[in-house]
């Protein structure tokens, strides 16, 4: 029994140690092992300092802080010219008018003192056109033009300010910190080294020299951040020493002589540093003071006043050169001190001198909340060139703060030589200076080209059925580092005085452009010219000018983002009159009358109206304002007119604005109908054209609501200008389950509908009554299926009475003898394919989706379950077989 137990124990120990050895062997690979889940993994964790380091900062470093872009009103500037720099800030939570714009202007002979540059700019801003020489500062008693800037920063202020390292993307707080080594009570952090001294042992006779060791303190270690991401810092000591927490009475002082050391060691045998205290491998920092400061231009030392303190004394007025009698010397509605601090001053205009360089630093609340226990947002700065290498070189530290029920690490930026001082943001100013002479920023050369050269605007119709041209504007950018990283912002403006060079342009982007106007790589803008008349300030003008502008800027990690602006002024003709097409009814007495309006159902129809040979068509000039007179008509260049004998709607009653003409030509030919008249209000001649394409008589089915049933994209055809246009099928349509489809017939010639009987069939079954003008139904078929819609029509003109009238009219009015009869259409059909989701399956990707491999679309988790179950089964089977092969215990 005892032997058996012993054997068990041995076996157990052997297996356990084997497993432990395996664990130790495999341990280096543990990092690739899967994490064993615990209950704590079921939801987001409570934050810990290390988590904050890894998660908090990586998240913050992905956030883009405020930026600014500087635009000059001139690309080239000469000495003595007035130039205006406009700051375009982005990413601030604070409204632009509440931001502090600290402009600075470095003249050619200026010193390196940033404050001197700021003062130069602040004086220009605050003075406006005021001449300081006219002022008497002596007897001013204050005119209430002080402004108190917020926040009022102090050591304990809870308004924290930050700078973003443009390279790493991390935000650093401007707070001073002090080292913390966390040494146990009674000991202090020191850099120590073991020193060997020779001491005389005089207790023996004769005295002998003996070697003794002593742990000698050196300096205090410096705490240096070793891992910014995870808030790790380590003590740093001079070479040859090590950091330890040591009781000071156990070490000898730095600078002690051998004799002093021997004396302090006395009869003891000495010590070595590794035996004294504890090794120090980590350290941290403790928050000290909030060191935020506004970057406003400062008054000279000893002045006794501060910029933005709410007091603007006459001495300050004199220093800044403002009017001591006026509250707003610059005349911009803001008090003088507000102008000095740059409140909302987004534009800075000055007279350029050779060598001038300008910059701006903008202070305000960003969109990013602080890590502190408050809802406040980070106050930060944007620099005119969005770069600051001084931040990279500054000392990076951190401190840990209790946030609610956990702790968070907060990175700080400190002076590289004195950590008790926060980083001085003024160090960023010099490298953000811009030379407007060479236009260091905005030096992308952007040119725009557009087509067609003389586009036509249709102010009457909606864009969907517009007769206006589609204008395409293409941007070409020179000087870009990477054309793929260009952000384009498009806008469309209209001339306010109808000229090509107005004083101002009116922005109509939102009214004209429905697609995206902003995007990376969006180098082409296309839009329909269907600008309503009311949007033109000079709407009576037949010719108008629009200006298409694009702002191109480089995006990405580049610290020196450049930008450029391009514009194209486009002259457009106003197509403000339309020649509206109608079907013509022929009465029994041969008189013609205007019937239903035709060619107003699709956009293609608005451009080119489809008609059948020998069809009689009516056209009326749509002139509801009665502006046009003396209208004359030509068809394919041949003069034509419509007399009162022909129709009561022609002749004098229509003032020449109506025309009836026969369609003569071969299938495929295009007829041009042109109306010319005089605009009585402007006296200008206007021309209105309408085009008709001749096709064989036919009946077609079209969708009355293309949102629920749309023609399938058959492909694209190339236009002569190289662009592509979509080609939609006439016979294949697409829809989706549950959609309410509405289909209608279209007859060519249109009058044929009146003399036709037609019926609808859905999948071979007749639906509805005869001559149902619209087939409406809800799609109840599953995806992947098709619905076949047929329209069967028969010509019901009896003995051909109406056809006879048409023949007579053609012969009587235009001398056209029509021998043959119309080829009357019989049946037409469309196929409606039912798709899964029109949002994801579009005509473009339809084929690809159905051709996809089924496995590809199986959910990953299902595959995982299959994989793991198979593994488990194999594991059980193999282990079962092995077990069966083992000898029975």
């Amino acid at each position, binding site marked *: 029994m005892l032997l058996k137990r012993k054997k068990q124990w041995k076996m157990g120990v052997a297996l356990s140690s084997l497993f432990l050895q395996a664990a130790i062997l495999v341990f280096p690979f543990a990092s690739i092992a899967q994490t*064993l889940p*615990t*209950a704590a993994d079921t939801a987001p964790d409570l934050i810990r300092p290390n988590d904050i380091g890894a998660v908090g900062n990586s998240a913050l470093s992905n956030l883009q802080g405020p930026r600014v872009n500087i635009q000059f009103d001139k690309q080239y500037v000469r000495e003595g010219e007035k130039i205006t720099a406009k700051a375009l800030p982005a990413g601030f939570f604070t409204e632009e008018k509440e931001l502090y714009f600290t402009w600075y202007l470095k003249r050619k002979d200026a010193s390196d003192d940033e404050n001197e540059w700021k003062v130069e700019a602040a004086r220009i801003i605050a003075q406006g056109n005021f001449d300081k020489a006219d002022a008497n500062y002596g007897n001013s008693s204050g005119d209430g033009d002080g402004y108190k800037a917020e926040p009022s920063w102090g050591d304990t202020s809870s308004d924290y300010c930050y700078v973003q390292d443009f390279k790493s993307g991390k935000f650093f707080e401007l707070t001073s910190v002090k080292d913390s080594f966390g040494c146990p009570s009674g000991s202090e952090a020191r850099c120590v080294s073991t020193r060997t001294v020779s001491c005389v042992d005089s207790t023996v006779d004769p005295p002998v020299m003996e070697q003794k060791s002593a742990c000698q303190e050196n300096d205090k270690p410096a705490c240096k951040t070793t891992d910014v991401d995870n808030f790790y810092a380590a003590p740093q000591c001079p070479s040859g020493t090590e950091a330890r927490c040591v009781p000071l009475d156990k070490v000898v002082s730095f600078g002690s002589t051998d004799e002093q050391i021997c004396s302090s060691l006395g009869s003891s045998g000495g010590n070595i540093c590794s035996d004294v205290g504890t090794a120090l491998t980590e350290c941290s920092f403790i928050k000290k003071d909030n060191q935020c400061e506004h970057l406003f231009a400062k008054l000279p030392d000893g002045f006794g006043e501060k910029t933005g303190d709410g007091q603007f004394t006459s001495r300050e007025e004199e220093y800044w050169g403002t009017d001591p009698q006026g509250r707003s010397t610059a005349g911009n509605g803001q008090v003088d001190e507000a102008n000095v601090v740059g409140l909302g001053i987004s534009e800075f205009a000055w007279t350029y001198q050779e060598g001038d360089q300008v910059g701006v630093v903008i202070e305000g609340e960003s969109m990013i909340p602080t890590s502190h226990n408050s809802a406040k947002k980070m106050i930060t700065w944007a620099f005119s060139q969005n770069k600051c290498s001084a931040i990279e070189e500054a000392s990076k530290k951190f401190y840990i703060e209790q946030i609610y029920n956990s702790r968070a690490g907060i990175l700080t930026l400190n002076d590289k030589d004195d950590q008790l001082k926060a980083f001085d943001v003024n160090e960023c100013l010099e490298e953000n200076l811009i030379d407007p002479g060479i236009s260091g920023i905005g030096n992308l050369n952007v040119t725009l080209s557009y087509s067609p050269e003389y586009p036509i605007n249709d102010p009457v119709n909606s864009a969907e059925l517009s007769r206006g041209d589609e204008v395409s504007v293409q941007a070409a950018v020179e000087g870009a580092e990477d054309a793929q990283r260009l952000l384009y912002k498009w806008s469309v403006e209209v001339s306010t005085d109808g000229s090509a060079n107005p004083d101002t342009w009116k922005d109509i982007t939102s009214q004209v452009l429905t697609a995206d106007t902003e995007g990376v790589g969006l180098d082409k803008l296309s839009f329909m010219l269907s600008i309503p008349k009311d949007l033109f300030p000079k709407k009576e003008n037949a010719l108008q000018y629009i200006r298409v502008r694009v702002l191109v800027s480089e995006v990405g990690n580049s610290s020196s983002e450049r930008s450029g602006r391009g514009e194209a002024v486009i002259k457009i003709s106003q197509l403000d009159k339309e020649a509206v097409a109608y079907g013509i009814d022929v009465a029994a007495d041969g008189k013609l009358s205007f019937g239903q309006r035709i060619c107003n159902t699709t956009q293609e129809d608005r451009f080119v109206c489809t008609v059948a040979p020998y069809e009689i068509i009516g056209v009326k000039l749509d002139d509801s304002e009665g502006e046009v007179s003396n209208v004359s008509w030509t068809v394919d260049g041949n003069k034509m007119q419509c007399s009162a004998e022909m129709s009561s709607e022609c002749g004098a009653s229509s003032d020449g604005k109506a025309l009836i003409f026969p369609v003569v030509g071969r299938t495929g030919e295009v007829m041009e109908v042109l109306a010319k008249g005089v605009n009585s209000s402007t006296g200008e001649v206007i021309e209105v054209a309408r085009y008709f394409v001749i096709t064989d008589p036919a009946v077609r089915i079209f969708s009355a609501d293309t949102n629920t049933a749309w023609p399938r994209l058959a492909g694209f055809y190339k236009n002569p200008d190289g662009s592509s246009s979509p080609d939609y099928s006439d016979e294949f349509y697409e829809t989706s389950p549950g959609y309410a489809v509405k289909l209608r017939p279209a007859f060519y010639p249109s009058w044929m509908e009146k003399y036709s009987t037609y019926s609808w069939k859905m999948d071979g079954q007749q639906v509805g009554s005869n001559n149902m003008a619209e087939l409406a139904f809800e799609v109840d078929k599953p995806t992947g299926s098709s619905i076949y819609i047929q329209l069967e029509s028969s010509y019901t003109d009896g003995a051909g009475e109406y056809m006879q009238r048409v023949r007579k009219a053609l012969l009587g009015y235009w001398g056209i003898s029509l021998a043959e009869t119309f080829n009357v259409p019989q049946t037409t059909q469309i196929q409606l394919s039912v798709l899964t989701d029109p949002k994801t399956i579009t005509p473009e990707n339809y084929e690809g989706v159905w051709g996809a491999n089924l496995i590809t679309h199986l959910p990953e988790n299902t595959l995982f379950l299959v994989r793991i179950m198979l593994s488990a089964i194999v*594991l059980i089977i193999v282990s079962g077989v092995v077990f069966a092969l083992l000898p029975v215990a």
Partner: protein
Amino acid sequence: MPVSGNKKELQRWYPLVFAALLVLVQAFFPTEGFFQSVISVMVFYVICPFLFFFLVLKGSFQDLFFKKGSLREGLLWSFISIVFSFLVLIAFSQYTDFLVQYRIPLAATESFGSFLGYELGSVSFFTAVYIFFFGAFVLSSVKIENVWKRSLGVTVFFAAALLLTGNLRWEFLPYLVFSYLGGVATLKSGSLIYSLLAQWLLIVLLDTFMVIIRT
């Protein structure tokens, strides 16, 4: 053919080898996301041991301590194990970062309802999984008769498994600390239910304590 004693012993210890294999396979079976991790643990720590135990070893539920057992022993040793584990954890918190590093989902601390849901749902589930695998399957596989040594063997196995899979995390400390006396409770009472409830109660108490001191 005569079979040596060592080879016979090998078959007796084979379940433990299989348990170690399961730990290894689970550790290196590729998963992505919490859902797959949970499934992986379910398969390798619950389903596979069950199948192995019943299909290969032809064992019974009783062999896996699925029985009522001794109520008196169970309650006594459960109480002792909770007190002992709590004291050990307090000692740990004195000298380590345990109180800071131990995680409770933020969502579970927002209201009493969510806390209760967390304890009854997630904590119960994971406690059951790990108690079943280490406190039942591995415990039944360790063929040592001495209760204390047997339980110690399970604790060593558990520690080795965590080390092997790189899971020496603070969240596992309560499980690891409890496993020793929890195993004793199971062996003394003959039932898994007492150590399961005691382990769950320990985690609930610990979580409650954590929430109180953190808020």
